[in-house]
């Protein structure tokens, strides 16, 4: 059935089905169970990429997520995903991949010229040059460097896939489904604990799928499949293949990415491509196995050269012989298993072992005490030069070279809370040191390298984690060979011997780093970029350190170790964002009149998460100013209505409610009469204005406090702080009711007439004077609240009803107000009117202004203690001539006053040292017929009438203005009291 030239029989793939795919436009076939890399190798394709710096030809170096070399752009168009590891990309029908980081074709990459220049492009070369002339860096050098650098290219199109986030809880999280992970999960499952078993691979079983070893007289892979099947029968077990645990965070929280759509030709509508899970694990068993490490030698980076275990994995699991002739270069016994397995698959194999006493084999040739000293083959390995024990050289023709320098326990996740692995001399590897609380390590990740030890430590780790002693599963029979290894890191004399394959860091670079004093591990890493590539140096870090240790003449553990950081493998940014993107970045809050406003064709504006009507255009109006001016004039001349529900509303009750408000507001509230509202300013403890609003006393022990829209949440939190932390015995209870009440401002000289039509009680000026408040009913009995307060400066009320009635109320108000040409107004008109009236808002309450700055200094009571009172009296906040809020009007009435402009003395220099203040808010005042502004000016209160220069060099404005009272309209406040 299979026609691919390097395809073997057997393995963990489904030979009965074929999948079509393409790479760089050429079409191939593979099988379910293949990765892109295994399918390409089966088809005889070894060249899959180019290295980062020298653009060297590269093929797969591994068969897993540690892959540094075989990175491709997967899929097309907006779905293009750069830097995808061919070694983990699950093959699907129609898969299309393209090679990356090349100019020209993969075989003839123009930038391969860098390789010829490599002698000049050593570690750190760019720190030493490109300095002259200074301006050339951005214009010339950097663009060239940037274009050559980078790996794959983004599509620059919006990601069409969706991502979910989720939350899982378990007693035991098992990371990795090899022998130790499976036994840990089984142990926990049988105890009834809630277990999650997560593995990055699409097939559970871990290393067992790549081995020919037996467990309990079954093949390892069959044993794994049977164990997985048993686990699947437990309701308390959640099996999560295709799920990479990316990070170990505080207190047993793990991040995990589950890939649901990456192996599908077309993602399902509405279904996420990936899910970012936050897993809350009582305990965790890390059973992440081990990663084989290479040996560095001259030209050790050609396609066809890979980790010995990768050759084994390709042969056993993926049924691929990378080439019919292979060499294995090693310093340990495990690599001989690779040779044995390849031999069993009919591959002609020779082992080159640096150890003079390496074990011999009946099946294949072993060259003891020998080393690979060079390789040749332009786009793929053709010959291996071996220096034999006697010093002679033997050239071996082959297309595959497996390298093994031993195995490193996969300690990545143990380091995420900055735990440092410790050196184990017997294993010649770093094993887990300090670990995140609640984490235990089992199997090869803990340095238990034999299959039996892996199985056994899986049981003990789970038992220890869950405190189990009885009914533990028996450990099945399995090989239990000790680790036999002689440390060997790189072939002496080699210089163009790659340590970090992706970032093109060679032995020579490490030596240069040492020579120039960059000797600590962190300096080495940063100076050479060792371990900084997309694989985080999973196969290269230790090699680099070992070379440095030799140069320093120190043991490896004395050189130190770099720690790994999350994520374990790179994660799509989309997965971290989940659904919160574009329009759904934040939820929306809609006002009670939203539906009605939509019907009116209102233009909406984002105010925090709220959507508020900004203005209500009418036919014939061509600019927003037309609408806003009309709304202002309609309100000032007759009556307008505006939804002000967004203001924070905090219900404050209790026998100490008044005393409490006296504490949080700088002005007095203790003596406020029932049925009255008072304007209040809250200070922060540092004496700066925090928020302003009103408090209405509905009963002796009941207030309704309003806050600005922006500060609703933080003011509530602050009030709870004052209560719980500073005055815990005060009898006061607070709850936010912002969403519970629909509130409308009804403003204008005719507002009373309109309201009286719906309010069941008398609201004449005598019965309901300025600053009155009351619980009332409207329209024949609906409970409501009425406040006679004004932001616009007109006779005005705010009326509140339970939110569900807000829609009905706005419609009724418009109905009964028709006789008075009632006009809805939006936030723009609201803002214009408050500027005309000189009321401070967000632009003035900017977190740096004091009550004095706002012209409200006298509100800060000296007769009582309130939050912020003491520090508001500091000298720097009360300096003579400090900023005061003023009104600003242009001398030439046609001039526009821009907010953000700065004020300068009419005569004198225009620069920062002569700055007199700035404009906080500005608008066109339809009431006055010209632009006006509010601003802060040094000694402003004493400079009314003075002419100043207003400059905004950013927007090319330079005009003359006059300072005036900020109360442009009705400065005496007569209108709101009629």
């Amino acid at each position, binding site marked *: 059935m299979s026609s691919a030239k390097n395809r073997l029989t057997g393995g963990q793939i489904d030979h009965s089905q074929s999948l079509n795919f393409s790479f760089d436009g050429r079409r191939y076939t593979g099988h379910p169970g293949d990765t892109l890399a295994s399918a390409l190798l089966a088809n005889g394709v070894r060249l899959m990429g180019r290295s980062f710096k020298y653009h060297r030809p590269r093929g797969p170096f591994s068969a897993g997520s540690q892959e540094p070399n075989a990175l491709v752009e997967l899929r097309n168009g907006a779905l293009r995903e750069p830097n995808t590891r061919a070694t983990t990309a699950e093959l699907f029908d129609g898969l299309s991949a393209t090679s990356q980081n090349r100019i020209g074709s993969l075989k003839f990459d123009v930038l391969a010229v860098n390789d010829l220049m490599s002698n000049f492009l050593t570690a750190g070369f760019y720190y030493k040059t490109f300095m002259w002339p200074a301006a050339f860096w951005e214009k010339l050098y950097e663009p060239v460097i940037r274009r050559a650098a980078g790996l794959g290219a983004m599509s620059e199109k919006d990601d069409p896939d969706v991502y979910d986030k989720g939350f899982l809880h378990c007693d035991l999280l098992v990371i990795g489904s090899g022998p130790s992970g499976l036994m840990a999960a089984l142990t926990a499952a049988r105890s009834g604990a809630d277990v999650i078993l997560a593995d990055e691979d699409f097939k559970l079983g871990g290393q067992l799928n790549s081995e020919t070893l037996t467990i309990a007289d079954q093949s390892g892979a069959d044993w794994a499949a049977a164990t997985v099947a048993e686990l699947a029968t437990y309701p308390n077990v959640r099996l999560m293949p295709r799920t990479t645990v990316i990070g170990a965070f505080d207190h047993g929280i793990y991040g995990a990415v589950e890939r649901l759509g990456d192996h599908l030709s077309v993602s399902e509508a509405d*279904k996420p491509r990936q899910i970012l899970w936050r897993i809350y694990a009582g305990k965790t068993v890390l059973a992440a196995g081990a990663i084989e490490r290479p040996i560095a030698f001259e030209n050790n980076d050609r396609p066809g050269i890979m980790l010995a275990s990768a050759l084994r994995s390709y042969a056993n699991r993926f049924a691929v012989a990378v080439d019919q002739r292979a060499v294995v270069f090693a310093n340990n016994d495990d690599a001989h298993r690779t040779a044995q397995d390849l031999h069993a698959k009919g591959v002609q194999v020779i082992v080159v072992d640096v150890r003079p006493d390496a074990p011999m084999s009946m099946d294949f040739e072993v060259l003891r005490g020998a080393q690979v000293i060079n390789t040749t083959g332009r786009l793929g390995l053709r010959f291996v030069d071996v220096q034999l024990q006697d010093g002679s050289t033997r050239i071996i023709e082959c297309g595959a070279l497996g390298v093994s320098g031993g195995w490193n326990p996969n300690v990545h996740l143990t380091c995420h809370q900055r735990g440092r692995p410790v050196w184990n001399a017997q294993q010649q590897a770093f094993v887990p040191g300090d670990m995140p609380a609640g984490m235990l390590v089992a199997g090869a990740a803990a340095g238990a390298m034999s299959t039996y030890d892996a199985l056994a430590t899986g049981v003990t780790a789970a038992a220890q984690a869950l405190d189990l002693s009885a009914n533990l599963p028996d450990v099945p029979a399995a090989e239990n060979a000790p680790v036999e290894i002689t440390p060997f890191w790189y072939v002496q004399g080699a210089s163009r011997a790659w340590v970090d394959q992706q970032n093109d860091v060679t032995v020579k670079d490490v030596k240069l780093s040492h020579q120039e004093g960059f000797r600590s591990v962190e300096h080495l890493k940063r100076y050479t970029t060792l371990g900084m590539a997309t694989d985080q140096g999973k196969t290269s870090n230790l090699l680099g350190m070992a070379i440095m240790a030799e140069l320093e003449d120190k043991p490896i553990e004395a050189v130190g170790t770099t720690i790994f950081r999350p994520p374990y493998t790179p994660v799509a940014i989309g997965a971290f964002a989940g659904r*919160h993107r574009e329009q759904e970045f934040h939820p929306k809050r809609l006002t009670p009149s939203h539906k009605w406003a939509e019907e009116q064709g209102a233009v909406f504006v984002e105010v925090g998460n709220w959507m508020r009507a900004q203005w209500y255009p009418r036919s014939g109006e061509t600019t927003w100013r037309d609408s806003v001016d009309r709304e202002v004039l309609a309100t000032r001349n007759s009556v307008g209505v505006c939804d002000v529900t967004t203001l924070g509303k905090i219900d404050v009750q209790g026998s100490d409610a008044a005393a409490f408000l006296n504490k949080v507001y700088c002005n007095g509230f203790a003596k406020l009469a029932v049925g009255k509202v008072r304007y209040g300013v809250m200070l922060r403890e540092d004496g700066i204005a925090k928020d302003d609003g009103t408090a209405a006393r509905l009963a002796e022990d009941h207030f309704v406090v309003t806050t600005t829209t922006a500060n609703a949440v933080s003011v509530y939190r602050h009030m709870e702080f004052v209560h719980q932390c500073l005055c815990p015995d005060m009898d006061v209870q607070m709850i936010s009711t912002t969403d519970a009440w629909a509130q409308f401002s009804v403003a204008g000289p005719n507002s009373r007439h309109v309201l009286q039509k719906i309010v069941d009680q008398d609201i004449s000026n005598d019965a309901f004077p300025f600053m009155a408040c009351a619980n009332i009913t409207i329209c024949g009995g609906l409970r409501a609240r009425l406040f006679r307060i004004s932001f616009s400066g007109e006779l005005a009320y705010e009326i509140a*009803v*339970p939110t569900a009635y807000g829609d009905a109320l706005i419609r009724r108000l418009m109905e009964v107000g028709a006789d008075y040409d009632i006009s809805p107004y939006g936030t723009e008109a609201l803002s214009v009117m408050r500027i005309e009236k000189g009321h401070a808002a967000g632009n003035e309450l900017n977190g740096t202004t004091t009550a004095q700055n706002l012209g409200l200094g006298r509100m800060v009571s000296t007769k009582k203690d309130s939050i912020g009172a003491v520090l508001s009296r500091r000298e720097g906040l009360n300096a003579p001539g400090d900023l005061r809020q003023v009104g600003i009007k242009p001398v030439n009435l046609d001039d526009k006053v821009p907010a953000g402009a700065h004020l300068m003395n009419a005569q004198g220099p225009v620069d920062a040292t002569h700055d007199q203040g700035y404009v906080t808010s500005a608008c066109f005042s339809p009431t006055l017929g010209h632009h006006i502004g509010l601003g802060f000016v040094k000694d402003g209160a004493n400079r009314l009438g003075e002419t100043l220069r207003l400059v905004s060099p950013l927007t090319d404005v330079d005009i003359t203005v006059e300072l005036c009272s900020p109360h442009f309209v009705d400065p005496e406040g007569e209108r709101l009291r009629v």
Partner: protein
Amino acid sequence: MSDLKPLPSLNMASATIGAIQIQERTDLELASVAARRGHKADCVTQLEILLGRAPDIGQVVTHDDQFGFWVGRHQWMLCCSSQSFSDLASDVKAEFRDTASVTEQSGGWVALDVSGSTVCDMMERLCNVPLRKLGSHQVQRTMIHQMNCFALTLAPEALLILGPRSSAASLYHALTVAARSIA
């Protein structure tokens, strides 16, 4: 009685997506109750009269067409089913008198019944409530897509979600998206 008609926040929206049903409830009235200083025991007694027993930490207690749940230390929410939009808070206040601060909450919340055999699968894509372990008649305050909600387990495979009314549309959207995700 007033002729003004209430408008449900989602116009009584409902959806069936896979095994999941989502339905806006428009019959709920809510009032919060917070014990005044020194009156916790009085409030508990009163809650026992109203609900049969006072909801303990994280609990929901149902009683005829009413239920109440724990909100915080010495704080509860009382809910009753009613089509008339009467003034629950006033009625409750009349019972508790000066032993508690009572605040009308009826308008503040959108109530969504979410039910179906896959409700746990759906909710684990939305919020950090360990629903599979929570049991019946439990309540947990939680963030759903940045919205501060209460999740109440009223029956097996059935939840009542109370969310901020102003965010009703976004909340409903989040629920339907999650339902489609797991359908």
